[in-house]
């Protein structure tokens, strides 16, 4: 019963690097389980996942991962406080109906949360909108406006502001380029917001 290998995404290496070995992790929106597989193998993490697409869930469980079908918007409420060392939400925040409520749940369920999202303030996005007057499509945001799952896009600056407003502490931040490499800029700064393709943040509640 051979399974296709899970698909590795450029930002996941940086997300994984923030996770301490041997910890308990919940990956919200775990897709086909690429990150969970990596964390289990490389860091002996006790990992769980939630995935909205049934095909992803089935692939994960068939691969021996502990994954349930569920929705970040509705199913995080079940979990008790501090149930995990890390709750990860990678490239999913922008697809949730209520990102603020989801963020609150992340830092409630996890002692730490790791959130990555596509930066809508990136220069390519700004230029497309400025010069073409059309909804931007970029390598990080490839879908047309009518087919994208992304309903709550934000910039790194927006995210940093919301975190501050919610009393969420940013312990670490990274701005990644298109290949997933961290840029040598302050993650919460204006330059990061201009050149970062993806933002990755390690968070905790105050």
């Amino acid at each position, binding site marked *: 019963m051979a399974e296709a290998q899970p698909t590795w995404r450029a930002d996941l290496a940086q997300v994984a690097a923030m996770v301490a070995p041997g910890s308990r992790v919940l990956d919200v929106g775990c897709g086909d389980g690429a990150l969970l597989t990596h964390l289990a193998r490389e860091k002996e993490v006790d990992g*769980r996942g939630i995935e909205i697409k049934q095909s992803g869930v089935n692939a994960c*469980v068939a691969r021996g991962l502990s994954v349930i079908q569920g929705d970040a918007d509705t199913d995080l409420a079940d979990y008790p406080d501090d149930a995990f060392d890390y709750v990860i939400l990678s490239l999913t925040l922008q697809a949730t109906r209520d990102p603020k409520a989801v963020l609150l749940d992340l830092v409630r369920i996890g002692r730490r949360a790791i959130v990555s999202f596509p930066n809508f303030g990136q220069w390519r996005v700004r230029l497309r909108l400025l010069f073409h007057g059309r909804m931007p499509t970029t390598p990080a945001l490839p879908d047309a406006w009518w087919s994208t799952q992304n309903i709550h896009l934000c910039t790194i600056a927006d995210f940093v502001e919301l975190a501050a407003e919610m009393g969420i502490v940013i312990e670490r931040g990274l701005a990644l380029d298109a290949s997933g490499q961290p840029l040598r800029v302050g993650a919460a700064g204006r330059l990061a917001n201009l050149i970062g393709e993806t933002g990755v943040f390690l968070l905790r509640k105050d």
Partner: protein
Amino acid sequence: MTTATTLSTISSVQELAALRHRLPGRRLTIPADEPLPLDRGVSLGPATVAYTTYGTLNAKRSNAILVCHALTGDHYAAEPHPITGKPGWWEQVIGKGLPIDIDRFFVICANVIGGCMGSTGPSDINPATGKPYGLDFPVITIADMVRAQVRLIDHLGIDKLFAVIGGSMGAMQALQWAADYPERVFASVPIAGAAHHTAQNIAFHEVGRQAIMADPEWRGGRYLEEGTDPRRGLSVARMTAHVTYLSEPALHRKFGRNLQDRSGVSFGFDADFQVESYLRHQGSSFVDRFDANAYLYITRAMDYFDLAAEHGGVLANAFQDTPVRFCLISFTSDWLFPTTESRKIVHALNAVAANVSFVEVESDKGHDSFLLDEPEFFRVLDGFLKGCAEHAKLPVSVTGSGT
């Protein structure tokens, strides 16, 4: 084995009752001086637990999987049925190279108490009267069934099961095991199950029971003594239940409105439609292998099942701090034990941050999907068990050492 010929020679329910004590398989006797305590407040003993095993128990006794059968199932899970001669109900799941791989696992399957395939049930002789129990048999529960299984596991010298796996009523047992004996189960796999029997479930069971009890040959449950046979009642019960195990798309695909060996309707009440003929066959073949009183008792045990009620009305309390790894599996077209019921269990397990996987398998075959050829289901079960084996550091084969 003279199994198929045995069936053709059975002419009465009385003969069938006698035959059950000669069926192949292993037996555990629960002695009268150490009887099985029951939820109902009485105890049962002496009693017999009929069971079968496949594969080999490893030296550490760490590779045992208990497979729990459904309402009308039995312990002949992966071998031909000794009465009907048909393949075992999970021959596609238990075997070499199959999801429950008998090269790796030691598989135990026991007939539930209250049943009629060798474990003590209402068709057995009540030692107090020397006559068949009939309705004097105590009403048993899912927890009682599990208690009997615990005796069996003790008898086999197994401290901790690698997994408890079951569909439908078997799922109830898998949940009960995890709730009552969390330290004795590494993994629990409730398939097409629920944490309680719903009003609709109870309602269908009641129709079945009423059909049995309305049969004049049932005689208040004393048919074995009176030489009667409530086969018509039991057969109607089976027909009703069988419809609930299927789905309309499955029935439509199989039969549609096709007529049975005729070109037009008969304007009578003969089996005009193929689906009628099929159901009648299901009913009449069922009575050749099943006992009417056992049907009453086992359906009752399912009706009484309510895991949350046992824990102050909060299902999550049943699993507080559970170390058990769970894998719940449901099927999209199962309207008897729908996905929503499995999801309730998942929510409860999340509330205690338990280790849980949950998969809904796309199938149009209804509740019976877990007994049928569903490759996606097999893949998931296979992957889950392999993942668990890795975590439990269980060797790949009984004699091997690697993982």
